[in-house]
């Protein structure tokens, strides 16, 4: 009975050492390798709105805007939103199509 208790105590000590090592590693990693939240927030705020209005009739604007934002890993990727302008729908064929979805 006493031997089993001693074995359990040694297991606890080993577990403590491992837990301490993992905590220390993650802590140091966070301190030296991670970006600060302020830096990330500033870079996101500074990113210009990627909305572009183009007129396909004029043929002067490129409908695919140059992406000028910073790529951040994690979360949803920023999607450029291209609003296309055209002259009316009359006579130009169907605006859209209904189909099974």
């Amino acid at each position: 009975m006493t031997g089993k208790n001693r074995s359990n105590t040694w297991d606890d000590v080993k577990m403590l050492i491992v837990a301490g090592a993992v905590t220390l590693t993650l802590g140091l990693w966070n301190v030296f390798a991670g970006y600060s939240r302020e830096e990330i927030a500033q870079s996101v705020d500074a990113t210009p709105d990627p909305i572009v209005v183009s007129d396909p009739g004029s043929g002067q604007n490129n409908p695919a805007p140059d992406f000028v934002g910073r790529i951040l890993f994690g979360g949803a990727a920023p999607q450029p939103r291209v609003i296309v302008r055209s002259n009316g729908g009359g006579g130009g064929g169907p605006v859209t199509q209904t189909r099974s979805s």
Partner: protein
Amino acid sequence: MLHKLEFQAMGCQVLAVVENPASPDALQYVPDWFEEWEQAFSRFRFDSELNTINHSNGRPMHVSSDFAKVFETARQAEWISAGLVTPVLFDALVNAGYDRSFEMILPDPTMPAPEALQYIPRLKDVHWDGSTRMIWLPPDLHLDFGGVAKGWAVEQAAKRLAPYGAALVDAGGDIAITGFQRDGGSWEIGIANPFNPSENLEVLNVGGCGVATSGRDGRNWVRAGKRFHHIIDPQTGLPAVTDVLTATVVAPTVTEAEAVAKTLLIRGSEAAMEWLEINPQYSAMLALEDGKRLVNNSMEFYLSRVNEC
């Protein structure tokens, strides 16, 4: 001047159009609206509100205002369809093989064909108090709003765009239109040919109304050598056995059009045309698997001339 914005949401291509001389500010926010609604109603996002409710393990839950509205819309769809379109078929869909986002379903010949469920839940098993927005699901009942949520989202987006001018919002073929164009012109909408979706069977000329198509030509998959689709018949709990390939409906609202299109598909062509006889407020065209097309009288109106719903 038409302003158009296209993007992906709710597992399909979304198109938002507004007729306005200036670029309407609201158009750029449409993707954010859809993202918010998808987060609430998707069964494929583990942290959606729908999944939170579905994992309530028999506890009463308080739901958001949007969730309450979609649930009420689903109840209305069940009433219109006499029980054929119901939001309680989550487990039947999973049993049929639609257990992940559609583009992730791969052909797997080793998977057995779905078998009939022992228990098919009913919407009356759900306790709902609209005044307090409290819902209680039995532990073995799970909700899936499916096309109802998409139709509702399309309708909300169109309503929000309406102050800027005549608007059209289309999510994967579920279309809401707020009214005629400024010059009184109608909106032309093609009805896809299920045998060749790049071409149109017909072109509708419509004003303010909802248009939807339900079909088994798009979302289908193979199990044990047989093809299955996502339109579940609540009478069997299995994909509907029907001679209708696609059903296209014009109705006052897109949520009604969606519910009616599904109803017609599940009923099959003969019973569908009988149903339309006693519900002439809905206009429909059925494309059958043998290549035939059936159109009710009121649908011919939209195929030949401009009309407000």
